[in-house]
């Protein structure tokens, strides 16, 4: 009896060890659910996150970011820097070297010509390439030899890792897309739905906005990977249903972006079938303060730099508004483990994170009241403070979203505690973020006193993000109301910091500048950061190898995913 048990144990152990020895396709099928369904597999034709992530299973860039925001070479041998000679001393060229023997899924060789083509494809003026910003300032991409790619910039580029880095800028196959340049791009439906890539998986069937079937790429560079032979990538439904299918019914192995109330997620996880994972990037839910007067009576000059805001241009008021907010409570109610209070609009990566503003973490209604008293804002008969006939009455707008409306209601209450009257407004997201210059309700026009939304930046370099608050970025009629400087902040010192960062190559110096810019915005209370929002996803307990990554695609390491054998 004992002997048989031991023998059985030995057999089981052998079976397990052989299973642990990786073999391509040994683990069968993996099911992924994205509650927003991908519309295309070509990330250059859609800037949406869902499309980028789906495409990242198939298409790969030269280098990706890992979970800590460090660059890892994927198709390239290593990451070029000034130190290793890959980046020229004047910061105008970067030279990448492809790994040896790389093959596309159809068996043909990956060459530098594919990179040259990818650049041409995305920079074509009629193509409407959604990622063309990644190729900004590139004047030429050259195939030095089959494996060497030299990118030349028209200006000195302290951070030359835009082209061909990250999920936004992968390589596409020149042979497949040769006839799809410019205006022809959308007509290449077969190529857009089934791009030939270098990634661990290849598309077998693509149903737009529904489901993608993939199989292991037989030409993947690591012969032992991927562990899964098939992927079903289902789209559609809502976050709750996606969470349920992984955490409660176990039909799916991985669910993306579960923006659900903290208690709902906790209840689902209690079923014991899966695990909720979260990770933090640069996404910050913030309140933008309008420094200009949105009064409709001003007509065309409404919300432009010509008229300063009647009371929000007083820093005491802005500071009091910030002090009255309990950021910890907001996190608890809205995001749970998927959020943390923040006092910086630039919360990550670690080297850019300032600790100079942490006082805002504590709500302080009394000091806020005193601040307003001292500044001469006195409460009237209705409890609303006023000075020189100007009442502290705020129109607070945001996009329609359950959590945002909860936040608005809470903040309205806190502000009324310090004698500020608030009127709330919410606008459908497709209008609010739509940027239609004809609509009065866009977040760029900002025909309100304060507005709340979330924003972040791609990759790890904050240069262009911090440049958002340059004076010239203010949306105004001359720019068709486009621009990123929603508060219409205008400060020559700040603009000087932006200009300095654009020509600084040293990482520590760049960090100092970014922090200085962040502190300036925070200490003048131009932006009130509220919550550093993480990404929340869930995977089944039998799916191993998941490393949640907010700097790149969540599926960035799908080649390493495998089935965890039950003990």
């Amino acid at each position, binding site marked *: 009896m004992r002997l048989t048990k031991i023998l059985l144990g030995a057999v089981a152990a052998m079976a397990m060890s052989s299973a642990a020895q990786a073999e391509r396709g040994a683990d069968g099928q993996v099911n992924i659910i994205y509650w927003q369904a991908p*519309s295309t597999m070509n990330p250059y034709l859609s800037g949406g996150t869902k499309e980028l992530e789906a495409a990242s299973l198939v298409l790969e860039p030269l280098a990706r970011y890992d979970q800590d925001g460090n660059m890892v070479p994927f198709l390239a041998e290593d990451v070029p820097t000034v130190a290793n000679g890959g980046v020229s001393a004047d910061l105008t060229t970067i030279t990448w070297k492809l790994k040896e023997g790389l093959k596309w899924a159809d068996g043909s060789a990956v060459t530098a010509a594919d990179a040259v083509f990818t650049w041409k494809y995305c920079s074509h003026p009629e193509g409407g390439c959604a990622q063309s910003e990644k190729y900004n300032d590139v004047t030429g991409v050259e195939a030095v030899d089959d494996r060497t790619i030299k990118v030349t910039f028209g200006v000195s580029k302290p951070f030359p890792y835009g082209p061909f880095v990250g999920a936004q800028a992968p390589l596409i196959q020149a042979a497949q897309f040769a006839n799809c340049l410019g205006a022809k791009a959308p007509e290449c439906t077969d190529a857009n739905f089934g791009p030939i890539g270098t990634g661990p998986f290849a598309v077998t069937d693509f149903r*737009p*906005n529904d489901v993608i079937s993939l199989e292991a790429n037989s030409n993947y560079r690591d012969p032992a990977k991927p562990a899964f032979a098939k992927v079903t990538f289902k*789209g559609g439904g809502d976050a709750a249903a996606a969470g349920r*299918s992984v955490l*409660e019914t176990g039909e799916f192995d991985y669910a993306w972006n579960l923006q659900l109330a903290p208690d709902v997620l906790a209840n689902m996880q209690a079923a014991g079938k899966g695990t909720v994972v979260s990770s933090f990037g640069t996404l910050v839910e913030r309140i933008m303060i309008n420094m200009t007067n949105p009064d409709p009576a001003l007509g065309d000059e409404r919300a432009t730099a010509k008229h300063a805001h009647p009371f929000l241009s007083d820093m005491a008021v802005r500071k009091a508004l910030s002090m009255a907010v309990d950021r910890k409570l907001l996190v608890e109610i809205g995001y749970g483990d998927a959020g943390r209070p923040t006092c910086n609009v630039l919360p990550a990566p670690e080297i850019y994170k300032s600790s100079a503003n942490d006082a805002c973490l504590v709500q302080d209604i009394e000091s806020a009241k005193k601040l307003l008293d001292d500044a001469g804002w006195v409460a009237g008969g209705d409890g609303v403070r006023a000075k020189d006939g100007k009442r502290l009455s705020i129109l607070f707008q945001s996009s329609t979203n359950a959590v945002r409306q909860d936040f608005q209601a809470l903040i309205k209450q806190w502000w009324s505690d310090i004698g500020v009257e608030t009127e709330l407004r919410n606008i459908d997201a497709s*209008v609010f973020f*739509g940027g239609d210059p004809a609509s009065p309700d866009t977040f760029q026009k900002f025909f309100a006193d304060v507005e709340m939304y979330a924003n972040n930046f*791609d990759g790890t370099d904050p240069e262009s993000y911090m440049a958002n608050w340059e004076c010239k970025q203010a949306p105004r009629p001359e720019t068709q109301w486009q621009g*990123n400087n929603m508060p219409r902040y205008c400060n020559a010192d700040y603009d000087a910091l932006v200009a300095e960062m654009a020509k600084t190559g040293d990482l520590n110096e760049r960090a100092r500048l970014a922090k200085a810019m962040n502190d300036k915005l925070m200490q003048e209370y131009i932006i009130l950061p509220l919550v550093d929002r993480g990404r929340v996803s869930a995977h089944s307990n039998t799916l191993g190898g998941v490393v949640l990554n907010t700097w790149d695609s969540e599926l960035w390491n799908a080649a390493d995913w495998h089935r965890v054998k039950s003990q």
Partner: protein
Amino acid sequence: MFNYTIRRLFLAIPTLFFISLIIFLLLDLAPSDPTANLPLTIPPEVREKIRQSLGLGEPIHIRYLLWCKQFFINEPLNIMEQWFGWDIAGDRLRVLSWQTRSPVVDLIVQRTPQTLWVVGMSYVVGVLIALPIGIISAYRQYSWFDQVGTFISMIGFSVPTFFTGVLMIVVFSVWLGWFPSIYDTTHQVTDWASFWQQIRQMVMPVAVLALFNAAQISRFMRASMLDNLNQDYVRTARAKGLGERTVVLVHVLRNSLIPVVTVIALGVPQVFGGAIITEQVFKVNGLGQLLIISIQGGDLPTVQTLTFIFAFLIVLFNLIADVLYGVLDPRIRYD
């Protein structure tokens, strides 16, 4: 009758053109932007370029005429090429969706099977349940059967499908684990096992929608039966000594069915329209889900084409209902 049908068909052509124009104008005037759902990290200049590449730079009348040309000329030509293997030379641009950048008609063709299977089946099941319930409820008015039937149809009427759908998922998928909560649109029926799998994944969405459909139709059936049961001809039939069975199922039912058949015919276009909410809840991803995703994504060509096809079906089935009415009821003649 034939002349009438022909006349109606010709009248439908300007109606449909007018509908397509109204839909186009409504969609165009509505505040929506195909680049609105892109991440904020994409700069405004790039967004503008994307809009230009979608053709939004053209004035509105050019865009409308372009859509008309693509939909009424290029698409039918394309279908003919595919069906008959013709090769009509020419580089024709088809109606392209802005979200997927693929031909809208192909998307619709891809989505139709699951919508017809699930929504169509639920309509058939709903009708099959509703007719007997309506007949018995009317014949035994105020009996316990009638009360229960009324109660259930009130539930079907008043409880929204997003509630019954999620309730069924929680009970049958999460607690009992009998049925999958997510519909697999790639599933192919090849043998009995896969057929059984198809049945399992259809049970819940079909049940939810059938309840809703049956509720409406059974009330119509009951009301129509009640109208007829008190008529003089029914008393005459009974006085002639006919059995109850013959009286109810032959005399009363046939006359009562006339209005019900038209109601059923008018409901058919809704089947093609899909069931937006139910499709979302069960991830059936049929035509209804395609429509809602396109509306959310500001994908005007898809919304325009889909709503126009729905309009066409509604006009068509209105005509069919009118003609059927004449066929079923000899008293009604249009000529």
